[in-house]
């Protein structure tokens, strides 16, 4: 079975631009979470969606938004990019709420 997939793999953007990252969960999984990992630190929680509803939000500014589609895939949007948004963005899926989470390979975003 395919694992969690994310696209694109790498992305280079300029300050002030907007970016959309995409995630497809493991087949049958209904929960998707997004995490940001900056160099040298552990991943930080951004959002969680379950059954297309937002179930959790981390301490990130309103420039970050997300949504989940009827097929349970998800998008993470970041507006007005800052240099500090440069990071590895990880998507995780789980069968349901409060289950083991499985991570995708990540999207490495560089903001110049």
């Amino acid at each position, binding site marked *: 079975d395919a694992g969690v997939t994310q696209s694109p793999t790498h992305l280079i953007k300029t300050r002030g631009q907007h970016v959309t990252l995409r995630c497809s969960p493991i087949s049958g999984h209904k*929960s998707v*979470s997004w*995490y940001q*990992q900056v160099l040298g*630190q*552990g*991943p*930080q*929680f951004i959002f*969680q969606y*379950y059954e297309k509803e937002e*179930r*959790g939000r*981390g301490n990130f500014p309103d420039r970050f938004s997300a949504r989940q589609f009827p097929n349970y895939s998800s998008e993470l949007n970041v507006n007005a990019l800052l240099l500090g948004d440069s990071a*590895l963005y*990880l998507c*995780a899926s*789980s069968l349901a*709420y*409060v289950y*083991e*989470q*499985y*991570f995708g*390979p*990540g999207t*490495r975003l560089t903001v110049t």
Partner: protein
Amino acid sequence: GIQVEQSPPDLILQEGANSTLRCNFSDSVNNLQWFHQNPWGQLINLFYIPSGTKQNGRLSATTVATERYSLLYISSSQTTDSGVYFCAVGAPNTDKLIFGTGTRLQVFP
């Protein structure tokens, strides 16, 4: 919020050695997972272990929820075990994983 501390921060071993990684957390949790992050950034699931003991090959893990700690044991380490090991916990009534700062393991031949 819940604090997660991992020790040691860095570990250097020779191939064949055994090691124990520790994860302490500050409050009750509903989920605890151990991950290995490879050099390309992929987080690989090792154990889902909110309580009890599990074993998978050369790896085993124990979580004592009442005392708020978990241990990851690596036996007969191999160079492919190198990378960063993360412990992550879930606070009650949330699906949010809170990650520790990680243990960077380097195994030399």
